[in-house]
């Protein structure tokens, strides 16, 4: 059996986080959705599928996995797995057939002869539809706020993969407040003096190479990804930070994809932040409306009721906010935006590559300028903007010109 993890047409439900990544690259718990699925099938060859626009970037990012390449999967039955499925193990797949959760396909084992005749995802999905199916209660996420709300549960589950271990340094004056066997400190990680790891509500996972500076308080369940630095932060329950983030201030039930900075004070709650984001000092998002009603977000040109009382901001990759930026409940900010928010609340939807300043969305300085900033920011972490990523950014810049022009007009 070979495994194919796919992204379907709902990728745009996860904008702005999926402009530059496949939906199965999003995080929940200590891992990405792709990692979660792969872990359930150790030793099985994995292929990946995503929309055409992403393929060059994904091929560079996953050189050891075939991307949109069905030839590589020939000769074996193919287990087609929905990349939005929050599968939990163990998964016992023996018979040809499909497993659904409601109307959503979770996975299907496709016979090799018929799978070999398929030329793309549509064919594979049609084949899956034609097979006998059974129902299983599996959460298939629909929106970013689903990942945020599931995050604490999955950190709890993921702790088993880490276990209670202290491989790094835990300073004698640091305190584990609650069960001591609910802490993992990875290799090379260092927890400085006067840090509180509060495990009463769940485990605290501090991955390899993390530095936790004095006076930081981490409430479990929380996951701090490799090489992050926490700077006297107040990390409330339900946070997951991907690799190489710098986090200060107060963060609650939020996911940061990785390589982003929130160095200073300011509150981030029920938010999902992309990569290479910089939140200026005192940047704060609201995650609860004053009338306690459910939060609406503006997504794909229409208002969507999240059905949730607590929803923070969704901030796309490479976006920067100024000092003192305040974000309304359920604000969506596109990729590569520059938000100079001091003095005025940005609108609840800011299109990709926009500049918000002096209370209005304006034409920015152009893509060349933004790419130069991205190169500088990535260079500071010894990373490079690849030609494939640059081409993807250019394509999205061109594709979103219209909505940007509309937004500019509105603010005239």
């Amino acid at each position, binding site marked *: 059996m070979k495994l194919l993890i796919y992204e379907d047409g709902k990728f745009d439900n996860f904008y702005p986080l999926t402009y530059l990544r496949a939906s199965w690259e999003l995080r929940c718990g200590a891992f990405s959705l792709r990692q979660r699925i792969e872990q359930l099938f150790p030793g099985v060859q994995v292929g990946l599928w995503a929309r055409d626009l992403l393929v060059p970037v994904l091929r560079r990012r996953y050189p050891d996995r075939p991307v949109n390449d069905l030839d590589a999967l020939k000769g074996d039955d193919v287990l087609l797995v929905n990349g939005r499925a929050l599968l939990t193990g163990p998964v016992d797949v023996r018979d040809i057939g499909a497993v659904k959760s409601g109307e959503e396909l979770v996975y299907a084992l496709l016979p090799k002869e018929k799978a070999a005749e398929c030329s793309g995802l549509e064919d594979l999905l049609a084949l899956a539809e034609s097979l006998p199916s059974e129902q299983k209660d599996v959460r298939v996420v629909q929106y970013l706020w689903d990942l945020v709300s599931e995050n604490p549960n999955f950190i709890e589950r993921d702790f088993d993969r880490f276990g209670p271990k202290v491989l790094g340094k835990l300073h004698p004056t640091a305190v584990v407040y609650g069960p001591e066997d609910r802490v993992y400190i990875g290799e090379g990680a260092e927890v400085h003096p006067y840090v509180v790891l509060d495990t009463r509500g769940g485990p605290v996972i501090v991955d390899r190479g993390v530095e936790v500076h004095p006076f930081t308080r981490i409430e479990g369940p929380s996951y701090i990804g490799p090489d992050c630095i926490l700077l006297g932060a107040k990390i409330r329950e339900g946070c997951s930070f991907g690799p190489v983030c710098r986090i200060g201030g107060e963060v609650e039930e939020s996911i940061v994809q990785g390589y982003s900075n929130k160095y200073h004070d300011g509150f981030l709650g029920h938010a999902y932040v992309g990569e290479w984001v910089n939140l200026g000092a005192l940047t704060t998002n609201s995650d609860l409306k004053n009338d306690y009603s459910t939060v609406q977000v503006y997504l794909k040109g229409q208002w969507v009721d999240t059905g949730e009382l607590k929803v923070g901001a969704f901030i796309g990759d490479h976006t920067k906010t100024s000092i003192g930026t305040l974000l309304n409940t359920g604000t969506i900010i596109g990729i590569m935006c520059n938000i100079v928010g001091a003095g005025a609340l940005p609108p609840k939807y800011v299109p990709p590559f926009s500049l918000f300043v*002096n209370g209005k969305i304006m034409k920015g300085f152009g893509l060349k300028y933004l790419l130069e900033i991205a190169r500088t920011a990535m260079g500071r972490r010894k990373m490079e903007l690849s030609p494939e990523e640059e081409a993807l950014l250019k394509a999205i810049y061109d594709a979103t010109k219209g909505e940007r022009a509309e937004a500019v007009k509105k603010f005239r």
Partner: protein
Amino acid sequence: MSQSVAERVKKVVARQLRVPIERVTEEARFVEDLGAESIQSLELVMAFEEEFDIEMDEEEALQVKTVGGAIEYISRLLENK
């Protein structure tokens, strides 16, 4: 008689950058002579677009350094409109 493009450009510049119209000569440089900060340059682009009902490419527009350059650039856009 309707105002020339040059006159309209100068008026927009004077209003946006809050400088006396006499200082807005064709040779005047936006940054060095008229004190435009980066954000003001962007506001100026928006004001030109509104005044002349045109679309300016942000990268091209920000290459324009003088009032005379703006008159020339906008005249060209109006010709191609």
